[in-house]
């Protein structure tokens, strides 16, 4: 018979029995954890679909195209989709080059005493609460945009995009840094031996070879920008119409969910929230899967 290993301090049979129960419990936790988390991910989607179903059958496909005007019975969420895209994409466009520059600094071109603190700073920055970013944005960015935009409240797409750009940078910088660091050392030495300068090596070897990681980082950054609630809720102004310029206010899908809390739980107004949730779920799931597919096995 196989003997079990038991630490030396266990003397009596009784205690061994207790330990067996403990082991069973551990086994239970491990398997139930695995089952629970795989069930959860589908449960979240299914519950939202279940609650949005009356809305879909009532409104049909028009929700994706129509405008938002509850008074006249029009519950389209198209303006919110536009608002989400119009705040997240500019944020990405602003943040991408700067993040790439920063990660190159931290990985290669930087002063050797500054490289480590640089990456540490970004790690610390990623733990700053989003609500604090948004709160500071109200007092720093919004007055600035108000001045530049000649009137208007300052609560606009531009303000939200600028703060979102700062928010998503750490995520992207991690990814870029990681993939720049994992480029083969011998290839790098080869490039230097062929007469490339250090900065030429970065531009013509490191960045092209880290392409996959950079794309994955961009996808994840976009996911964060689309999914962020507090910044667009507090800075974008929340008017539910199609915006005409960057200085106008807009409402994102996330902010829409946060704002619509009608008392009547069966109204189409309220049901539209779940449609927004489903869209957000599907977009972010798609982005995560794509990022993973591009950057196989390297996502931590």
């Amino acid at each position, binding site marked *: 018979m*196989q003997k*079990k*290993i038991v630490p030396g301090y266990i003397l009596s049979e009784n205690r061994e029995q207790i330990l067996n129960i403990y*082991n069973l419990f*551990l086994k239970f*936790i*491990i398997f139930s*954890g*695995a089952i*629970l*988390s*795989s069930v*959860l991910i589908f449960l*979240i989607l299914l*519950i*939202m679909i279940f*609650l949005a179903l009356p809305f879909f059958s009532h409104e049909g496909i028009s929700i994706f195209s129509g405008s938002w005007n509850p008074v006249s019975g029009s519950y389209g969420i198209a303006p919110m989709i536009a608002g989400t895209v119009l705040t997240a994409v500019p944020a990405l466009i602003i943040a991408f*080059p*700067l993040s790439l*520059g*920063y990660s*190159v*600094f931290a990985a290669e*071109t*930087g002063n050797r005493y500054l490289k480590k603190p*640089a990456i*540490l*700073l*970004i*790690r610390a*920055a990623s*733990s*700053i*609460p*989003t*609500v*604090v*970013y*948004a*709160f*500071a944005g109200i*007092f*720093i960015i919004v007055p600035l945009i108000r001045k530049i935009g000649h009137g208007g409240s300052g609560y606009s797409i531009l303000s939200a995009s600028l703060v979102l750009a*700062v928010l998503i940078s750490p995520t992207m910088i991690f990814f870029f840094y990681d993939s720049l660091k994992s480029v083969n050392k011998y290839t790098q030495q080869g490039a230097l031996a062929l007469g490339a300068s250090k*900065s030429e090596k970065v*531009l*013509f070897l490191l960045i092209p070879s880290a392409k996959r990681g950079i794309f994955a980082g961009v996808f994840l950054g976009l996911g964060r920008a689309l*999914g962020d*609630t*507090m910044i667009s809720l507090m800075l974008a102004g929340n008017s539910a119409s199609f915006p005409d310029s960057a200085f106008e206010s807009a409402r994102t899908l*996330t902010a829409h*969910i*946060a704002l619509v*809390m009608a008392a009547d*739980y069966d109204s189409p107004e309220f049901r539209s929230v779940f449609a927004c*949730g489903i869209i*957000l*779920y599907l977009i972010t*799931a798609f982005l995560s899967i794509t990022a993973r597919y591009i950057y196989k096995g390297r996502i*931590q």
Partner: protein
Amino acid sequence: MKINAASLFRLFSYFSFIFYVGVFVFFISYLFIRSDAPFSSASVFGESSFIKAVFYNEPVFEGLYPALCGTLLLVATSVLIAVPFGTGTGLWLSEFAKGRKQKVMTLLIDILSGLPSIVIGLFGFSIILIMHKIIPAKSPGFSIIVSSFSLSVLVLPYIAKSTQTAVSSLDKSLKLSGLSLGADKIENIRYILLPKAFPSILSGILLAIARCAEDTAVIMLTGAVANAGIPGSIFERFEALPFFIYYTSSEYTSENELEMAFNASVLLIFICIVLFIISYCINSIAFKRKKRVK
């Protein structure tokens, strides 16, 4: 130095470094300047004192104490729910799952960790709705327990991933030694893998705590309110620091209230950064120890 694309890019990398450092320094110092002694007794306890508030339950009106208590209770319950299942999932991923199962599960965990927090808040909200329909009398309603449950869904993938990395980055010979001595898988996990991977798992949990403390979107939909006082039980509505900041930013009536929101911001950043630093230190000590053993 020659001026070409490469050297220009180098200059650009210096610029972006200075840019981000400038942004973060400006941002943090702005909050500090606008706040008014965030760590003082007056900011947390208002007119009441520490001893009266903590030991004699004297109500605190002009301080952050109720919000701080709400956040602490919220974080504690969320972590209690999330840690067993999160580490369980991580252990399953690294020790039990093989091949396709492992791939699918990792993908699911990735999707879960990429979900916007508002979607998870909506999930918590739906649970309240459905519970209310099924058992109107006994449903928990908007409360700490529902918020904690939703928050634990939010941080579960973080804990699972950090556990998985911690366990699977252990030495292969170490992993096999217990098994070769006749321990079964569970015993191996309990006596060898868990104790050895504990520091890295702990640092992951600390980051999850910071995530629980900072998230606003989830608690906004599941029970945080502006004036709840100190939470009496986990079945009540509650105040929390991040929600207080959000609420005050839109509803403030006086400079004084605004100052309190700045205090709350500094306090919240302080909590998150301290948790980050502890987690970083634990991780780097564990890493050094591992190197020395090798």
